[in-house]
């Protein structure tokens, strides 16, 4: 596996801008196009927001770990927390056909992650914490690519 870049910050929404910048920078270096980078920023932002708001119940003194790597033809982001585990199958899809007046508030975060990334996997480990791994395919133009 290639290099993995890691950013470790406190679980505050004030760090979302720094996380977005860190991920965008890594994706740019890897050669992703601007539209893909924007998609990734949204997915990461939503995932980290959920971790802070749900897994950590808005406590801002906990640890949030964001790792980026390139694996084969995919840009991979792994987000780790040590809060309340989460079963993604328990949440319903948002009803996007409903008129605005009847729209339930929220429920877009996980939907955005799934729609904008090529794969999203949630997992929970005893000491490794909760992880969400998101992958975005791209065409690497790196000269020393092993592909």
């Amino acid at each position, binding site marked *: 596996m290639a290099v993995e870049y890691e950013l470790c910050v406190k679980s505050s929404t004030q760090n*979302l801008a720094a996380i977005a910048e860190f991920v965008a920078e890594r994706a740019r270096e890897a050669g992703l196009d601007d*539209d893909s980078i924007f998609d990734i920023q*949204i997915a990461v*932002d939503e995932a980290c*927001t959920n971790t802070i708001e749900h897994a950590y119940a808005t406590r801002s003194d906990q640890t949030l770990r964001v790792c980026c790597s390139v694996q084969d033809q995919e840009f991979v982001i792994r987000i780790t927390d040590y809060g309340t585990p989460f079963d993604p199958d328990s949440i319903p899809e948002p009803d*996007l*056909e409903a008129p*605005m007046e009847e729209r339930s*508030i*929220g429920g877009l975060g996980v939907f955005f992650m799934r729609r904008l990334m090529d794969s999203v996997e949630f997992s929970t480990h005893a000491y490794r914490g909760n992880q969400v791994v998101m992958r975005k395919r791209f065409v690497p133009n790196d000269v020393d690519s092993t592909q």
Partner: protein
Amino acid sequence: MNITVTKLKRCDLLKLEGRFDSNTAPELDQAMNDSMDDGVFRIVLDMQDVEYFGSAAIRALVNAYKSCRETTGGDVRLAAVPDRIMHVLELAGIAPLVEIFETPTLAVGSF
């Protein structure tokens, strides 16, 4: 993130700049609530310089939209939405519901 409010004759114009994520969306929520507390239920959001508009900001927008439209003639209208932000609004299914104008002038002039 920055919000500049201009109080016009028929509506409030809110110029939004920068990132609206779950950290800054509460300020958008607050700004729109301030207008409503002021008795103004016609709001234009100038989106031209918005770099990011996440689900928390969309939530704030939907909330204000609902409240404004409960009043006669009230509405939240968008102007100058950048392509990428438009894509997010489309994904969330709200692009077809909210009135979106090319420029703030046209949006203000629609009230």
